[in-house]
């Protein structure tokens, strides 16, 4: 990609610390930087960027650009896109990485539109070949794996959470305040309120274990057995479309084609039949365990371990068994 060099990671907006996906992106960027030359830079937009910059430094960022402005205390697409663009202009990178999240996609799409370049969305692999970047993207929930590249630089990609490992690395870091001119049109959106409702909700995309419930739970109350197992495992709770459509669970919990796409280490499907649209959201999980009454449920055709049985006896027993083993070890 001609004279552009280095990689820029645009930190996922958040509170108080960097998101795992940002740390994963920094780690991968460091591994790739040798191939294209130039530093790994991170841009952080926050009320108090100091701790975030220090965290980026611990993961080996060579330069951290910080934006601390009253206009950007809470996510706003316009000014945050302006900040990302200012960092792109300051670094002239060969590759820019965003989180594949609602915020990250807004920013990546905004920057790509301004630059007139393409977008590599939801990448789970990134390689450098002859100075170009090749991105891997699982289409349709992983039933097809596509390799793509951008035809012009900088390449802009959104990175799927948990796709890469995160590792700290020693090195020197320059922390640089970045000045940004905010476009008036982006400042038209005003933040009125920030409301926290789900305290302690484990993010499905970042969870390493997910316990998910389907129609087999019988009712909204049936989720209590799922919840107990999830708490014992430190897992996130997921749900099938049937359960969300029935109003038993908020759609934020839905895994599948019209919900979230997840790839945890372990996915425990409880009372979920495993339709094509559900499978599309979870088949890239490393291990799948299924519990279902119906021995012919499609989920058993792709689960690593399946138990045909009543989830209301198997799940509580499993919760207890894991608790017992943890206590014994």
């Amino acid at each position, binding site marked *: 990609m001609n004279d552009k060099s280095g990689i820029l990671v645009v930190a996922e907006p958040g509170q108080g610390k960097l998101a795992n996906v940002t740390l994963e992106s920094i780690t991968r960027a460091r591994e790739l930087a040798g191939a294209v030359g130039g530093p790994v830079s991170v841009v952080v937009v926050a009320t108090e960027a100091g701790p975030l910059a220090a965290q980026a430094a611990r993961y080996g960022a060579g330069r951290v650009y910080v934006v601390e402005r009253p206009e950007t205390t809470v996510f706003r697409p316009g000014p945050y896109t302006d900040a990302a663009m200012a960092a792109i202009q300051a670094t002239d990178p060969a590759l820019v990485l965003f989180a594949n999240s609602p915020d990250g996609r807004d920013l990546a799409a905004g920057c790509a*539109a301004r630059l007139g370049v393409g977008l590599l969305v939801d990448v789970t692999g990134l390689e450098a070949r002859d100075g170009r970047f090749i991105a891997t993207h699982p289409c349709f929930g992983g039933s097809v794996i596509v390799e793509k590249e951008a035809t012009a630089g900088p390449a802009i990609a959104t990175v799927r959470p948990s796709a890469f490992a995160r590792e700290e690395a020693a090195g020197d870091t320059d922390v640089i305040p970045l000045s940004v001119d905010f476009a008036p049109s982006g400042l038209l959106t005003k933040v009125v309120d920030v409301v926290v409702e789900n305290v302690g909700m484990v993010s499905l995309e970042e969870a390493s274990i997910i316990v998910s419930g389907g129609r087999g739970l019988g009712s909204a109350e049936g989720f209590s057995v799922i919840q107990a197992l999830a708490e014992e495992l430190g897992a996130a709770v997921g749900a099938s479309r049937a359960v969300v459509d029935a109003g038993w669970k908020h759609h934020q919990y839905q895994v599948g084609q019209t919900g979230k796409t997840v790839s945890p280490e372990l996915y425990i499907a409880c009372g979920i039949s495993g339709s*094509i649209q559900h499978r599309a959201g979870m088949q890239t999980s490393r291990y799948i365990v299924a519990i279902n009454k119906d021995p012919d449920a499609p989920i058993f055709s792709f689960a690593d371990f399946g138990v045909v049985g009543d989830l209301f006896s198997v799940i509580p027993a*499993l919760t207890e068994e894991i608790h017992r083993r943890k206590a014994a070890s």
Partner: protein
Amino acid sequence: MNIVVCVKQVVDTEAEKRLDPGTWRLDRSVNSILNPYDEYAVEEALRLAESHGGEVTLLCMGPETATEAIRKALAMGADRALLVSGDALAGSDAQGTAYVLAEALKSLEFDLVLFGSRSTDGETGCVPAAVAERLGLPLLSSLSKVEVRDSTLIVHRETEQGYIAYECPAPAVLSVVKGINEPRYPSMKGIMGAKKKPLDVKDPTALSLDTAQIGLSGAQTRVLSATVPEPRKAGMKIEDDGAGAQRIADFLASEKLV
């Protein structure tokens, strides 16, 4: 409040999706439907128009057969539709699509542009932001509530923890999430009426589109390869004889998962 809802026809979510081995484009010969996420955007537009007046126009880029999905949204109650269609558009990526929609929007009158949060086939979720950028309009995405007071939009943007409430003047580009409302089913009267509603079809020339920015040749991303991974195989399956939980715990321990 005149609203344009951008809609897409997608392959049925219950169908296995395939890529054409020659072009690496999605095989759209299987059953197609209105993108499920767009139903929420159409419903929201209808509700806003019902309480504040104004018309709902659908804007779609797609093949001629996309009229089927458009008719469904018309049957729900939208007033008219514009389909941008033509061979030159096939293979457009997210940026190309955003360019086409933005150009088409310039030919329409609106106070608000609504999108579903993403399509179930392209799945980029990037088109609303790119359209907003191209039109120089404010963007607010992933909304779980949209209200209008005078010409000010009051919206809730969903977050993992809850939501952020924003205010923004119209016109703006918004995308809404599943769950913002309960999309209505088209009534028999709606279905019959939809056949008579205006559905304009325009080709890229009629919109004076720059051919360098559209279609497969205008795409700024290139597919290098597409492979179908080895399908997951069934592993161990047991009947619960009372020791099912124990066996799962053993399996998790043997794979070092707990």
